C-alpha cells in the first residue's frame, strides 16, 4: 500500500518537480535577520490583493457596468443581497489598506536601502506595482458611479485633455465619447477588472521572481557599504553563516497578515462600505464631491494651488516624481544602506508624509465649497436676530435671500468660502461694507446689479449690528468725506445709514 502511494507521489514529483519548487521558493535560504516586523509589509500588500480578487469576483457577479444600472446594482448589494454589503465593505477597506501597507512597504524598502545594487529591478517593478495599485484605486472609485465618481472622472478627463497634442485623443480613449456615460463606465470597468489586475498579477510575478532571485535584503548595518564588486560575495557569506529557509521565519508575517485581515473585517462590520452617495446626475447640485482617501491629498493640492499653476501639479510634478522614483536605484546604487546614516532619505520620507498627511487633513476639513442649502435651510442663531431694528431684520432677510450665507458663516454656521461675519462690524465700517457688497473683490462677486439700494443699505445695516456687545464697531479713521463746498452731513444714530445726506 505504502509502496503504491510512494510510487504515485514519485510519478507526480518526476513530472511537477515540487521538491525543487519548494527549495527555490518557500525553502530558499534568507538572512535570519529578515524575520522582522519591518519585513511584513510586502506580504500584507499581497494579502490585500488576494482579498481584492476574491471580493471583486463576488462583486462582479452582481455589478452591472452600465450608466443606467451601476448605481442600482450597488443598492442591490447594499440592501438586498445577503452579505453583499460585507463584500463591498471588504473590497473598499481592502483597497484602502492595500494602498496604506504598500506605502509602508515602499518606505521600509527605501529606508533600508533595499533598492541598491543588485535589486534595482525589484524596486522598478515595485514602482510599476504602485502605479497599477493607484490605477486600481481610482478606477474602483469610478465603479460606484455616484457623484464622487462622476466628478472624479470629469477631473481626470479634464487633466488628460490638457496633455499637449494628444490630449483630445486621450480623453476620447478614456471616455469613449464626449460625455461620461456607459461608454466611459465600461472602459473603466475593463481597466478595473481585466487590464489592471492582469498587469498587477504579471508584475507581482516578476517582483517575486526578482525577490527570490536576488534574495531578500539583509538588515543593513551602519557603516557597511554596498559595493558592486563585493556585495554578491558579502550576501552569499551571510546566507552561508545565518541563512534559514524562508518558511521557517514567516511567523511574524502570519501574525501581521492575521491582524490586517481582522482590521479589514472590523472596518467593514463597524464602519461599513462607502456609498453609493448621490447618483451621478449632473443637474443635481453636489456641494462637495470628494475622491477616496488615496487621492484626497491631490484633491486638496489642486484646490489650494494658485490659479494658473495646474500644469505644474498635473504634469511637471508627476513627471519629476516618476523620474525620481524610477531613477533612484541608479542615482544611489552603492554605499550606505542604514537609515541612521542617510539623513537626506529620512528628510525625504518625513517631508513626503507630512505633505501628504497635511493635504489629506486639509481635504477632509477644508471649506472647499459653498454651503448650498444655507440660504433656505440654516437659520441664523437667535442672538444674532434679537434686538435688531426692523430695517436690520430686513437686512438679515436680504443676507439669507441673496445666499450670502452660502459662503459666509455667522457664529460658525454657514459656508466657509468667505470670511465668517460674526463680528464683521468690528473690522469694517459702514462705507467699507457697502463697497465690498456692491463691488465684491477678493473672490467675492459684485452684487451691485443684484441688490437695490434699499437692500444694500438694509444688508449693511444688519452687518453693522454684528459686533459683540462689549466691542464697539469699527470707526472711520477720518471724518466723513464730502465734496468741497457741501455742508457736513448729519451723522445718523448708530452709524447705520450711509446715505443720510447723499
Amino acid at each position, binding site marked *: 500500500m505504502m509502496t503504491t502511494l510512494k510510487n504515485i507521489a514519485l510519478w507526480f514529483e518526476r513530472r511537477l518537480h515540487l521538491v525543487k519548487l519548494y527549495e527555490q521558493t518557500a525553502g530558499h535560504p534568507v538572512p535570519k535577520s529578515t524575520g522582522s516586523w519591518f519585513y511584513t509589509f510586502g506580504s500584507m500588500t499581497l494579502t490585500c490583493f488576494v482579498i481584492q480578487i476574491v471580493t471583486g469576483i463576488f462583486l462582479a457577479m452582481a455589478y452591472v457596468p452600465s450608466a443606467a444600472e451601476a448605481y442600482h446594482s450597488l*443598492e442591490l448589494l*447594499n*440592501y438586498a443581497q*445577503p452579505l453583499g*454589503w460585507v463584500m463591498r*465593505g471588504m473590497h473598499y477597506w481592502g483597497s484602502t489598506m492595500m494602498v496604506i501597507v504598500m506605502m509602508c512597504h515602499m518606505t521600509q524598502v527605501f529606508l533600508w536601502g533595499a533598492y541598491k545594487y543588485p535589486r534595482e529591478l525589484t524596486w522598478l517593478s515595485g514602482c510599476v506595482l504602485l502605479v497599477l495599485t493607484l490605477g486600481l484605486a481610482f478606477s474602483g472609485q469610478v465603479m460606484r458611479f455616484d457623484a464622487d465618481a462622476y466628478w472624479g472622472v470629469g477631473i481626470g478627463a479634464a487633466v488628460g485633455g490638457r496633455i499637449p497634442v494628444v490630449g483630445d485623443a486621450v480623453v476620447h480613449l478614456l471616455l469613449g465619447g464626449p460625455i461620461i456615460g456607459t461608454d466611459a463606465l465600461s472602459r473603466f470597468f475593463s481597466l478595473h477588472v481585466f487590464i489592471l489586475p492582469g498587469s498587477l498579477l504579471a508584475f507581482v510575478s516578476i517582483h517575486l521572481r526578482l525577490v527570490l532571485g536576488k534574495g531578500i535584503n539583509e538588515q543593513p548595518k551602519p557603516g557597511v557599504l554596498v559595493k558592486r564588486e563585493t556585495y554578491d560575495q558579502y550576501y552569499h557569506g551571510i546566507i552561508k553563516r545565518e541563512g534559514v529557509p524562508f518558511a*521557517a521565519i514567516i*511567523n511574524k508575517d*502570519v*501574525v501581521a497578515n*492575521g*491582524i490586517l*485581515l*481582522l482590521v479589514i*473585517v*472590523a*472596518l*467593514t*462590520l*463597524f*464602519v*461599513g*462600505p462607502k456609498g453609493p452617495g*448621490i*447618483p451621478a446626475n449632473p443637474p443635481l447640485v453636489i456641494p462637495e464631491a470628494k475622491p477616496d482617501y488615496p487621492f484626497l491629498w491631490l484633491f486638496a493640492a489642486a484646490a489650494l494651488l494658485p490659479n494658473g499653476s495646474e500644469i505644474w501639479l498635473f504634469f511637471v510634478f508627476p513627471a519629476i516624481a516618476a523620474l525620481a522614483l524610477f531613477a533612484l536605484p541608479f542615482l544611489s546604487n552603492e554605499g550606505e544602506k542604514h537609515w541612521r546614516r542617510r539623513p537626506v532619505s529620512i528628510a525625504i520620507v518625513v517631508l513626503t508624509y507630512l505633505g501628504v498627511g497635511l493635504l489629506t487633513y486639509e481635504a477632509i476639513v477644508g471649506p472647499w465649497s459653498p454651503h448650498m*442649502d*444655507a440660504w*433656505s*435651510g*440654516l*437659520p441664523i*442663531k*437667535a442672538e444674532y436676530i*434679537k434686538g435688531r*431694528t*426692523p*430695517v*436690520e*431684520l*430686513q437686512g*438679515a*432677510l*436680504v*443676507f*439669507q*435671500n441673496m445666499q450670502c*450665507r452660502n459662503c459666509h458663516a455667522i457664529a460658525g454656521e454657514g459656508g466657509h468660502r468667505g470670511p465668517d461675519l460674526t463680528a464683521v462690524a468690528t473690522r469694517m465700517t459702514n462705507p467699507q461694507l457697502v463697497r465690498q457688497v*456692491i463691488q465684491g473683490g477678493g473672490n467675492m462677486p459684485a452684487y451691485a446689479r443684484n441688490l*437695490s*439700494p*434699499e437692500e444694500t*443699505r*438694509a444688508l449693511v*445695516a444688519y452687518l453693522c449690528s454684528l459686533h459683540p456687545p462689549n466691542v464697539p464697531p469699527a470707526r472711520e479713521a477720518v471724518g466723513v468725506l464730502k465734496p468741497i463746498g457741501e455742508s457736513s452731513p448729519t451723522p445718523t*444714530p448708530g452709524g447705520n*445709514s*450711509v*446715505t443720510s*445726506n*447723499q
Partner: protein
Amino acid sequence: MNFSWPSILLSAGVSAGLFAMSGCDQLPGKPKESDRWQPPEAIKDFKTLFGANCSACHGDDTSIGPSISVQNPLYLAVIPKDILRKIIADGIKGTPMPGFAKANGGDLTDEQVDILVNDLTSKAAQQTNLPPYSAAPGDANHGSEVYNQYCANCHGQAGQGGEKAGAVVNPDYLHLVSDQYLRSVVIGGRPELGMWNYQEFVKGHPMSSQEIADVVAWLGSHRLTNQEGNAAASPTANGSSQ
C-alpha cells in the same frame, strides 16, 4: 513556528466570529435604509421640508427668523389657506419671498407645497372675531393717532425708534416690506422677538381692523417716492452710479 499556530487559530476564530456577526442586522457598518439617498421630490415629511426651505428666513421651533414667523398661530388663523398656498408656490413679487413651486423655478412639487400648507394651517389658533387677513387702504391721518395710541410706547415718537424697538419709518425698511406684511406683523405680532400682537398693545382693547389699516397707511406714507428713492440711492453726493 511555535507561536504562529495559536495565532493562526486565534485569527481564524475571531474572523469566523466577525463573519458570523455579519449576518446580524444591528452591526453599525450595515447600510441602513434611512441612509439611502432619495430624490428631493420623495421627501414627504413636513419637518424636513420646512427645515430645508423655510426655516432660514421664517425660523422654526428652535430658532428665530428675520422675517415673520409663519408658525405664529394668530397669523395662521388669519391667513386664508389658498393665499398661503399661493404665497409658498408663487412667492410675492417685489419682496424677498421666492416662489418654491417647480413651476416657478423652485424645488417643491405641488404635493410638497400641500404638505407644508396643510401642516401649517393645522397649527392655527382657534379664535373667532379676528380681523380679516387683508383690508382696503386706510386713512393715514387717522393712522398717526392710532400709532401714538398703540405703537409709540415701543417704537418711539413718530416711529423714529425707541428704547424697546427700532424705527419703523425708515424708508429702506418700508421699501422692502409690503403693506400686507405690515398688516400681518401688526395682527400677529413677533412674539419670538418680544413684539405683542394686535390684542395686546393696549390691554383689554384690541385694535380694530380699520385701525390696523389706518396705521399701515400711515407707515406707508413714509415710503419715499421713486424720485426721492433714486436720489437717496446714489451712494455718492456727485451722483455717480452704483
